[in-house]
C-alpha cells in the first residue's frame, strides 16, 4: 500500500494559493484599503494622515469638478456604447455576407483593436490639429471656418467619443461575427421562402439571437468606458476646463498630480461602487431577460 495521499482539500488549496496571494494583495486588499483610506486625510511631510471621518466625501459633494466629471463620464458612456454596438453589428452583418472586398473590410474594421490606445490617440491628435490637421483640411475644402476641435468645450468630448467608437467597434464586431456564424443559414432560407424582407428577418430573427452577444459586449463596453483613459492623457489632459475629464482620469489627477491620496481614495470608492452596481445589475436583471439558445 502507498502512504496516505494528500487530501483533495490540501492539493486544491496549494494549487490555488499562488494566484490567491497575488489576487488578494492587488485586488481585494486595495479595494478594502480604498474604503479605509477614504476616511483619512492625506499625509503631509509635517503631519501624518489622521482620521477625518466623512470629510473627503463632504468635499466631494461640494466639489463642482467631481460632478462635472461624473456627468462627462455619463455622457461618454451613454454615447460610446450604443454607437459602437450598432456599428459593430452593422460591420459584422456586412462582413459575414457576400460583400465585395470582404477581407479588406474586415481588416480595416479590426485593425484599430490591436493598436495601442496611446498610439491611436497620437494619430487622432494630429487628425484634429487646428490649421493643418486632416479634419481641418477637409472642412476647409467646404469653406468652413477653422475650429479648434479639442480646444473648445463643446466639441472636445464628442471628439474623444469618436476615437473610442473607432477603436472599439471593430473589437465588438468579431463577437457578433462569431455569433452570426452560429446562426443556421436554413433560418434565412426559410424566411426568404415565406417572403420576409431582409430588415424584417434581421429585426425578428437575427437581432434576438444576437442578444447574449449584445449583453456580453455591453458589459465589456461599460467596463471599458470607466477603465480606459489613455487617450485623455494624450489628447486633452482632461481639458479644456475639465470638459473631457472622466472619473478615472480625475482620480489620476487628484492622486498623482495633486498627491491628495485621501480624496483620491474617496473618488476611487465611487468608481468601485459604480462598477459593482453594474455587476449586480448584470446578475439580477439582465441575465433573466436575455434569450439564450
Amino acid at each position, binding site marked *: 500500500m502507498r502512504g496516505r495521499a494528500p487530501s483533495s482539500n490540501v492539493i486544491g488549496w496549494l494549487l490555488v494559493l499562488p494566484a490567491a496571494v497575488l489576487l488578494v494583495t*492587488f485586488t481585494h486588499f486595495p479595494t478594502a484599503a480604498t474604503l479605509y483610506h477614504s476616511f483619512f486625510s492625506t499625509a503631509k511631510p509635517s503631519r501624518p494622515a489622521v482620521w477625518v471621518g466623512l470629510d473627503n466625501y463632504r468635499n466631494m459633494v461640494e466639489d463642482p469638478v467631481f460632478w462635472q466629471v461624473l456627468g462627462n463620464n455619463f455622457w461618454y458612456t451613454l454615447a460610446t456604447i450604443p454607437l459602437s454596438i450598432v456599428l459593430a453589428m452593422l460591420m459584422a452583418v456586412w462582413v459575414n455576407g457576400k460583400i465585395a472586398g470582404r477581407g479588406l473590410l474586415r481588416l480595416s474594421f479590426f*485593425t484599430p483593436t490591436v493598436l495601442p490606445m496611446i498610439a491611436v490617440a497620437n494619430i487622432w491628435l494630429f487628425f484634429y490639429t487646428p490649421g493643418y490637421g486632416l479634419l481641418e483640411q477637409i472642412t476647409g475644402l467646404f469653406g468652413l471656418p477653422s475650429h479648434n476641435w479639442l480646444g473648445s468645450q463643446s466639441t472636445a468630448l464628442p471628439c474623444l467619443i469618436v476615437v473610442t467608437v473607432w477603436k472599439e467597434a471593430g473589437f465588438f464586431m468579431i463577437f457578433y461575427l462569431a455569433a452570426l456564424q452560429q446562426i443556421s443559414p436554413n433560418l434565412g432560407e426559410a424566411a426568404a421562402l415565406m417572403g420576409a424582407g431582409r430588415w424584417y428577418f434581421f429585426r425578428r430573427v437575427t437581432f434576438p439571437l444576437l442578444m447574449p452577444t449584445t449583453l456580453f459586449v455591453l458589459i465589456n463596453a461599460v467596463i471599458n468606458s470607466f477603465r480606459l483613459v489613455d487617450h485623455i*492623457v494624450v489628447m486633452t489632459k482632461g481639458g479644456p476646463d475639465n470638459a473631457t475629464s472622466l472619473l478615472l482620469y480625475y482620480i489620476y489627477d487628484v492622486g498623482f498630480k495633486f498627491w491628495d491620496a485621501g480624496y483620491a481614495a474617496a473618488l476611487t470608492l465611487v468608481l468601485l461602487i459604480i462598477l459593482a452596481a453594474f455587476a449586480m445589475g448584470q446578475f439580477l436583471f439582465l441575465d433573466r431577460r436575455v434569450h439564450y439558445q
Partner: protein
Amino acid sequence: MKTRALETAGAWLLGFLWALPLAYAVWTAFHPAAFSTHFVPSAPLTLENFAKAWAAAPFARYFVNTTLLVTMILAAQLVLCTLAAYAFARFSFRGREIAFLLVLVQLMIMPDVLIVENYRTMSRLGILDTLGAIGLPYMASAFGIFLLRQTFKTVPKELDEAARVEGAGALLTLWRVYVPLARPVYVAYALVSVSYHWNNFLWPLIVTNSVNSRPLTVGLQIFSSGDQGVDWSIITAATLMTSGPLLIAFLLFQRQFVQSFMRAGIR
C-alpha cells in the same frame, strides 16, 4: 438590386473612414515633413523620420523593457492561472465556490482602477520604478483562470483517471493530460495578454519614472509631449514604430488574432 449596391457603398465608406487615420499616419511617417499634409503621388518616400525618432529617444531600451515586461507577465499568468484553474475545475476543496467568486471579482474591479492603493503597496514594497511593479497586479488573472477552468472542465475524466492509474500525481497529470488539450486556448490567451500589456499605459505611467523601466507606451508619450515641438512626421513615425511589431504580427497572423480574440471573449 438597388439596396444591395447602396449597402456595399455604405460598407466601403465605413471601411474607408476606419482605415483613414492609420493611412494618414503611414503617409506622414514615410514622407518628408513638407508633404505631411500635402497629398501628391510624386512625394518622395523617406525613412528619415524613423531614423530621427529612433535617435531622439531611447526607444531601443523601451523595446527591451516592453518585451521583458510582456514575457514576464505572460509566463507568470500561464503558470498561476493553470494551477488555479486546474484546482477549480477538478478538485473539491473546502471554500471552493467562495474562492472562485472572489477570483471573479477581478473581472469587474481590474487593477487598472486600483491605481492609488496599488501605488501605495508598491511604494511600501520598495519596488517603484521596476518592471516587477508594472507586472505584479496583472499576474494572477481572473480572466485566465476562468478561461482555463472552462477548458479543463471539458477534458474527459477518463483521461485524468487513466493517467492517475499509471501513477501520475496531480501536477504530472495536469502537465500530460490537461495542458496539451488546452493548447488552442493557451495560444488565444497569450495573444490577448500580449496585446493588452504591450498597449497598457496608465499604470506603467504611474509607477515608472526612469528610462530603465519605462515601457514603449510611456516612452512614446514622453517623447511626443516633450520638446519635439509639433514635428508630426517624427511623432507619427515613433507612433508607428512602437505599435509596429504588434501590427506586423497581426497582419501576418490575422486569422489567429481574430480567432483568439473571439475565443477569449466567448465565455
